[in-house]
């Protein structure tokens, strides 16, 4: 038998040693007095990131104010305001009548402040010749009634419906406002072959790539190279493209106001904070997070 020379093949994994440099920085904070001005802010999950960004910026500028932000949903926030456990309740819907009466029974007067607006743009591939749809048509596309672009004035292509996952606030809002056209009795559901993508990015890349696709996303997140659909509230109505102007004058159909509620007219630090939220400086953050700034 032929002797094979012993070959030594060494496959070593070189482990890079990460040097743990412990920096001995002294941690003497300048603020000796603990902040006494404390704002408790709770509510809508749609707004929670925006509220956090505001709170962070504001605390940076006013080190004496502490703002605690938690989510949980609009209902949770309003319930907390009614119980008097929070100073500011975030809500992505108007307060309900029964909530107001419950609050009044508890000695709380909810006062509404519009802090930003939220709009959803319906997007398609730039090669798709369809430019405008009515709300009803979009509802029928997503519920599975229309399956070919021809049925809404496009090319002979299958419609591929894209949506966010069911746990996204945008998904629920789209379901209520577009699929069910705002009607509570309507039990229309998304067609089962609607693709549920876990991220905005997933929807955008599929729409960019696929001429069959239709998707939706927060207005601020839509990149310039995708086509937004002009939407009419009803057949024969005016088709309106989403923009900051059309959202603010309420001509665009899929838009809503975002609110903060206070107990009575705000005063003191809460008033300062709300005034700051409506300043240009804070509203820039609104646009950065994909919402529409509220123009007074």
């Amino acid at each position, binding site marked *: 038998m032929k002797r094979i020379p012993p070959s030594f093949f060494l496959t070593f994994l070189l482990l890079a040693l990460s040097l743990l440099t412990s920096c001995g920085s002294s941690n003497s904070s300048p603020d000796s007095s603990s902040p006494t001005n404390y704002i408790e802010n709770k509510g809508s999950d749609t707004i929670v990131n925006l509220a956090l960004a505001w709170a962070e910026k504001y605390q940076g500028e006013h080190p004496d104010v502490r703002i605690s932000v938690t989510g949980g949903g609009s209902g949770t926030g309003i319930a907390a305001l009614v119980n008097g456990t929070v100073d500011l309740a975030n809500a992505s819907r108007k307060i309900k009548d029964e909530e107001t009466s419950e609050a009044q029974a508890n000695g709380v007067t909810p006062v509404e402040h519009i802090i930003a607006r939220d709009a959803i743009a319906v997007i398609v591939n730039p090669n798709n010749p369809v430019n405008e749809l009515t709300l009803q048509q979009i509802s029928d596309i997503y519920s599975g009634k229309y399956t070919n672009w021809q049925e809404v004035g496009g090319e002979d292509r299958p419609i591929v419906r894209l949506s966010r996952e069911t746990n996204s606030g945008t998904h629920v809002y789209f379901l209520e406002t577009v699929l069910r056209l705002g009607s509570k009795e309507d039990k229309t559901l998304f067609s*089962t072959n609607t693709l*549920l993508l*876990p991220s905005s990015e*997933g929807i955008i*890349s599929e729409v960019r790539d696929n001429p069959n696709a239709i998707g939706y996303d927060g207005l601020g997140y839509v990149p310039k190279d995708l086509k937004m659909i002009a939407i009419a509230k009803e057949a024969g109505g005016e088709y309106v493209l989403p923009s900051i102007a059309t959202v603010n004058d309420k001509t665009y159909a899929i838009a809503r106001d975002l609110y903060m509620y206070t107990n009575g007219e705000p005063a003191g630090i809460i008033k300062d904070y709300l005034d700051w939220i409506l300043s240009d400086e804070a509203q820039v953050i609104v646009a950065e997070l994909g919402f529409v700034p509220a123009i007074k």
Partner: protein
Amino acid sequence: MEKSLSWREFIITRLIQSSGYSAILFVALIFFFLLREGLPTLGEVDASSLFNFRWYPIESYFGILPLLSGSLIVTLGAALIAVPFGIGTAIYISEIAPRWMREILKPLVELLGGLPSVVLGFLGILVLSPFLRVFLDLPTGLTALTGSLLLGGIAVPTVVSVAEDALDSVPRAYREGAWALGATKWQTIWRVTLPAAKSGVLTAVMLGVGRAIGETMTVMMVTGNAPVLATGLGSLFSPVRTMTATIAAEMGEVANGSTHYHVLFFIGMVLFIISLVVNVIASSVVFRAKKRAERILS
């Protein structure tokens, strides 16, 4: 001197023993936890709506059949790719390739096994799914097939390295005996080496399938996650939603202790039971095969 040695022996034996038993303990604990969180489902959702065709949890539609069929079809597709491809690669590396080739291939396959699945998911979204859409003229490239191809890619290294080890451990005398009887290289591989390594190769297949059915990230990124009931092989070319992707996508936002939360754990239980059944079948087949071989040898 002797006493301290036996003491050390005792401690080391116990340590090794307890780490062996700990595996049993962990599996039992995990299963107990899944049961505790998942079983309330049966009280909250009746069986007819649980085994239904509609999954839309925010409106209390908890039909898990689309998810079950989605997982099965993606895994089946992955197995169809990974098994022949993986065993073929293992045979090539262990039986046919010259030594230098083997030394290049083996570490490369192992490197492939170490690729993070998120990275593969990216490849799937950016390269594979657009390609499949245009190439096969599909409405969308986010389909079960895309998931199967990528999962096949994930399972291949597992299959290759386990199957290759099994083939390698077949005594050289078996092959020499076959050659001496005038068998060709192919006949030797197909009739002698592969059957002799059967139990190891089967383990490789099972591990590969297990890897595929449990994979989450890639599947969530490329299969489109539409909860449509898969009815046949044609469903390979349409979007599906798997059990793993459902748990991953929905667990983060679900209210603790709600029906939806329990149903997600129930799905986890179903996954656990599926992999348990696969493993039990595999080991019983291997066991039976061994017994027969022993009978013949004795």
